[in-house]
């Protein structure tokens, strides 16, 4: 095949960059030449079946692990396992399911959920806007970076819980202080990942854009921002996790609504199954919202999935 291409090159250079030659090159030496089409489709079939099998196996293992965990939990709660840590006050999975079912018929339950979601939505979107903007500016302008970085370095290690007293003192309402804590929690991973992404912009791409006539602003939109996007997406993902973490801290300590309040209140009221209902809610909504962020970012990163 390569010899043929070579001969064509000598005989008619005009046509050697035809699409046919390109296709040959694209296929590469490791793919079979034309005429072996049957083998190709057979190979694809087997590998597709293998992949499906692997996927099925992986999911059944996951389901089995979950079921085993539930069974273990049920057993430990049932026999009131007491082995350094105690299961005598831990409700069984059945009691938890029962509690969940009961709450599912109460409006108040949904208010808790909606209020938590609202706090996440407000705090997180604020953090996303401010974080991406700050990160982009700090990544491009050294002066701004020098001005802002000390604050980030200093404030970043302070956990959300530590902020609660001051946040309550600083903000007029409990609601705004909780949103502030969510905002702070999500902000740092988003800023830092954005800066990192901007720094990773390959210099050769900036140069290419310059030689094509791009202005500084155009370079920013067409090169720096897209180059930083994978890292920004990672920051947004991590930020969503931290946002939930911070939300719970805020809700447990102040407020009368929210999933965190519901969970902690269940403990005070000795409604032990509700503790686990609250925990499960946090897990489910935390996972779902992180997944939603990833889903939202997907269209912007389509090129990455198609890069081999």
């Amino acid at each position, binding site marked *: 095949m390569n010899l043929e291409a070579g001969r064509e*090159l000598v005989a008619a250079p005009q046509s050697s960059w035809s699409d046919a030659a390109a296709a040959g*090159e694209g296929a590469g030496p490791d793919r079979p030449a034309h005429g072996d089409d049957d083998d190709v489709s057979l190979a694809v079939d087997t590998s597709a079946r293998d992949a499906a099998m692997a996927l099925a196996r992986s999911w059944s293992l996951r389901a089995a692990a979950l079921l085993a965990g539930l069974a273990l939990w049920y057993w430990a709660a049932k026999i009131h396992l007491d082995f350094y840590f105690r299961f005598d006050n831990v409700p069984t999975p059945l009691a938890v399911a029962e509690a969940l079912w009961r709450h599912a018929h109460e409006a108040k339950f949904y208010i808790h959920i909606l209020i938590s979601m609202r706090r996440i939505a407000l705090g997180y979107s604020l953090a996303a806007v401010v974080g991406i903007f700050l990160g982009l500016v700090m990544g491009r302008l050294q002066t701004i970076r020098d001005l802002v970085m000390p604050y980030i370095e200093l404030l970043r290690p302070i956990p959300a819980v530590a902020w609660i007293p001051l946040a309550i003192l600083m903000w007029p309402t409990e609601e705004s202080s909780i949103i502030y804590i969510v905002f702070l929690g999500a902000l740092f991973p988003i800023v830092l990942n954005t800066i990192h992404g901007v720094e990773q912009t390959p210099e050769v791409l900036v*140069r290419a854009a310059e*030689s*094509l006539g791009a202005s500084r602003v155009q370079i920013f939109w067409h090169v720096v921002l*897209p180059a930083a996007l994978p890292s920004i997406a990672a920051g947004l993902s991590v930020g969503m996790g931290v946002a939930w973490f911070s939300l719970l801290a805020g809700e447990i300590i102040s407020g009368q609504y929210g999933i965190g309040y519901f969970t902690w209140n269940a403990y005070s009221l000795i409604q032990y199954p509700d503790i686990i209902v609250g925990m499960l809610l946090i897990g489910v909504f935390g996972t779902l919202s992180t997944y939603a962020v990833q889903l939202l970012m997907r269209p912007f990163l389509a090129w990455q999935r198609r890069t081999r």
Partner: protein
Amino acid sequence: MIGRVVKLEERAAAKTGRGADKGRILIERVAVTYGRGAHMHMAVTQTSLEIAPGEFVCLLGPSGCGKSTLLNCVAGYVRPSQGQVSIDGVPVTKPGPDRGMVFQQYSLFPWKTVFDNVAFGPRLAGKGDAEATSTARTFLEMVGLSRFAKKYPGELSGGMQQRVGIARALANYPAVLLMDEPFGALDSQTRAMMQQNLLRIWDEFGITVLFVTHDVDEALFLADRVLVMSASPGRVIADLTVPLERPRLPEIATEEAFVRLKRRCLDIISVESLRAFEQQNR
């Protein structure tokens, strides 16, 4: 078929429209030093050159001798410490669309499709969408990659990516094409094909090409003129005319005239590297 004829005419028009006297590169007493104080390092020393419009010139030399530095002065990425570069009488102060650039590393925007990569220059130039689209189509066809317009660069082989890079650089109809070891990372067969097709494009456009390479065969196969550079400090030590007939085919490499030129180049380089070696060991 008709579409193809029209496009070829378009290209011919573009070529004549450019005129035969665009793309004169003048390098006047250019010197480049990197760093300062104890770390100061002279990458290129006092170099003066003139490259005529439409000429194909290769800068040949061992790696680290300052070829990229000199090319980057013409491109506008590096500001000479002394002297100046001008294109058609206009001093170079920054990179611009009048000088197309093809890099050694793959430099396509991975988030833009092949088509959008090529259309990027015309769009930046404020061309309407229709014109940018037709320009991009024309150039993709010229490098034989129309079928891959909707792919992303990461889905293409190295050779194909470099072809897109060439199409992208030419889509602004620059007066000068600057190429920094563009085929250095390709396998020898792809490389031979790329060289031959580059010559075809050059012939079609009548564009000035300044091409950096460390490969003697590549320089002789492509160029009208080979400028041999030597290291420490980087400077042009020989300016050889390559009087080989065009169009050139790969067999030319076995012809007597080619072999003679090659021997001359190698002689110059070996004398020079011996000198550099002795200098280092003194």
